[in-house]
């Protein structure tokens, strides 16, 4: 049975995919970060949200 946190994350990815400025590549990078065993780090999120995003934009 998925946990509440897992359900929230799945819905989060789904809604982000439909949001302006997000494509599948960014969402997948976020997924990898948020579901990694290690602690979530703001610096890593900054990299994902600003990194190669421009080329990946639709």
């Amino acid at each position, binding site marked *: 049975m998925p946990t*509440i946190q897992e359900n929230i994350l799945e819905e989060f990815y789904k809604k982000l995919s439909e949001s302006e400025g997000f494509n599948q590549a960014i969402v997948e990078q976020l997924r990898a970060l948020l579901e990694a065993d290690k602690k979530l780090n703001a610096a890593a999120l900054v990299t994902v949200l*600003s990194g190669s995003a421009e080329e990946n*934009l639709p």
Partner: protein
Amino acid sequence: MIQIESVHIKELRGIRDLTLTMNRESFVVSGPNGSGKSGVVDAIQFVLTGEIGRLKGSGTGDLNLADHGPHVEARSYPDASSVTLDVHIPHLGKSASITRRIKKPKHLKITPNDADVKAVFDEIAQHSEITLSRREIIKFILTEASQRSRDVQTLLKLDDIDQTRATLKTTENKLNTAYSTAKAQAESGEDSLKRHLDLAKLTVEDLLLTINKRRKLLGLSEIKEIAKDTSVAEGISEGGAKGSAAQTKESALRDINAVSDAVNKGLETTTEVAVKSALRSILKIEANADLLSSIKRRSLLQSGLDLVDGPHCPLCDTDWDIGALRAHLQEKLEKSKEAQVVRDKLLEAGRSISKEVIRIRGLIEPLTKIAEVDKRFVKRLGQWSGNLLAFSEALSSLEGAIALKERLESGWASIPDTLSSDLDLTREKVKARPDKSATVEAHDFLVVAQERLNNWRLFRRDAETKNAAASRGKIAYKVYCDVAEAALVELYAEVEGDFGKYYQLVNHDDEGEFKAKFEPMDGKLGLLVDFHKKGMFPPGAYHSEGHQDGMGVCLYLALMKRVLGTNFTLAVLDDVVMSVDSQHRKQFCKLLKTYFPDTQFVITTHDQVWARQMRTEGLIGTKSAVAFHTWTVDTGPVIDEVAEIWDSIAEDLAKNEVPTAAARLRRHLEYVAADLADELGAKVSFRGDGGYDMGELLSAVIGRQGELLKRAEKAAKSWDDAQAKVKVEGLQKARAKSLATCGGEQWIINKAVHYNEWAELSRQDFEPVVTAFRQLLHQFRCEKPKCDSWLALTPRFDPVDLRCACGSFRLNLKQK
């Protein structure tokens, strides 16, 4: 997940050597304070989680598992201190045995060591809330909304949600700051380009007009549009003057004058509000030494919280309870909120000032490329720009900003003393520059224009990228908050519903329409409860301590149902609901039996009446109890097995101890008579002091039994229910036989009233009395061993049924 078959405890806490057989059924351990019953709770908690809650957390000081886990006489032999649990795992259909020793608390010996069995125990180790004390239960009720939110989220294993939300917020802030800096940089680049082009506003039309005017002079083709890679200097001959040497006289003068004008207007004018705000914050911090340490501690706590990401301390590898530690750090962070506000205001002011620093450095930089600026002035400009950069960087940290107090008070721009004269001298030199030909001027103009256009493009692109990133950061945070809140609202609605339902059942007599309302908002979880339909109030406002205890248990059960679902098969409740009164305890038993029939409850209590009530209500089986009556260091708890009352009386009589047997029967009847009178609605004369006579109660109960059987008989006839008719007839015959055997109702009542006479009877005379009461009481009880509850009217007022708790005994009382 699991149910306990038996627990074997050796040299742990107050226990030397104890085996309790629980047979996967709910079990009660009773005994006075200090009799060692909490040692059983500690043992179960230890073997399941490797920890003993009583030895950790706030207020436990120097206590630790290694030194204080073993029995006081076994402190030097921690290897002798162990707990073994024989369990059944319902969803796997397997039995297993686990042993844990104080010497190696992280090591768990599991038999069989199958992967699925091991996974079950790994999972249980994450659920220390299976073992719960009153202190822990009440914390969900009597606490601030923010703390409740954390406690509930910890219990529900939702701490990650808050953590993720906080990290996304930090990310959003970082991206915003980066965008803000990049935007200031782009604006500075735009100003630099506009100055060179001598345009007040940068429009494509004006840019093309200005550029094409020079291109025409050079015989270059007209540029019709400005794309992102358009070069305004395209086609210009190689080898011409470039960079600083190419700056035109007019453009150089505009750059010089821009600095002069800015200085004359006052470089700090636009930052006056921000500087005042920064100084206010600094003065606040200086006036209150505790505030600074609180802010510093807050940073430490925040860093500490970020490091709490595994089951062990990253420095010393000591085990920690990650949920409890996070909650503890969060609580401290909450307390330092004022410090956070001051800190945030100071840093926000610093960011505003830094934006102005970027603008000024953008004015300084072009000066260094003017040919007439001598090396010493270039050096001074470089030092000034570097100084401003260092100032700006210092503003980004608390300590750095506080150290800048004097500079902020006296004028932070630190304009070099010689700036004005240096600018004047340079201006004169530039003015004295011999005029170049129009084509050379045009050439130089286009080269510098292209250079500044390139810079602006870079800055602008960077700002656009960072703006997009900041926008994504904002969206990510908002989407996560919305999704999490929706999920939590749904979750709390479920918990809220169950909580209200359970509490209504426990308090059906006075709060049968109780309602509760969770109010989750901004990381807080408000809780309001109905108080006798007078409105919704915080739980501690009007409800008694006993009712609050009841709420705590009901909320705990509702939460556990949500956390574990069908895996909620075990709960260890350490002296909970101790202040709930007798009537509500009866309903509490009903709650556990009705809504948690598959959960094994191991309950400790110092209240013998409560222990007995659990048995009479059928929550605890006749063999599922143990009483600790004394405790010594050498022996640990001394046990009195709570056997079936009739077995105990038989044992007394076998030893010819009639007075003991008589006293035991008397106590039992005293309790049962009142209980049955209540359950069956027997009519007795009201007594203001509640001192009802046992004989009067028993007489009323027996009479009421006869009435109810007659009602059931009539009901069966009206429905023409042959099966019910036979059942009622059988019960009436059994009742008549029992009363006849006892020599009639009056005989029983008289003996009951004059129970003191029993002590004088011989064993032979007393045995028939015992048998008579046993047979009589048997008629009021469910025969199913699992249920074993007294029959009761349902619903309590205006009843339609006489039934037991499990429903296997049911007589319809309502006629067609």
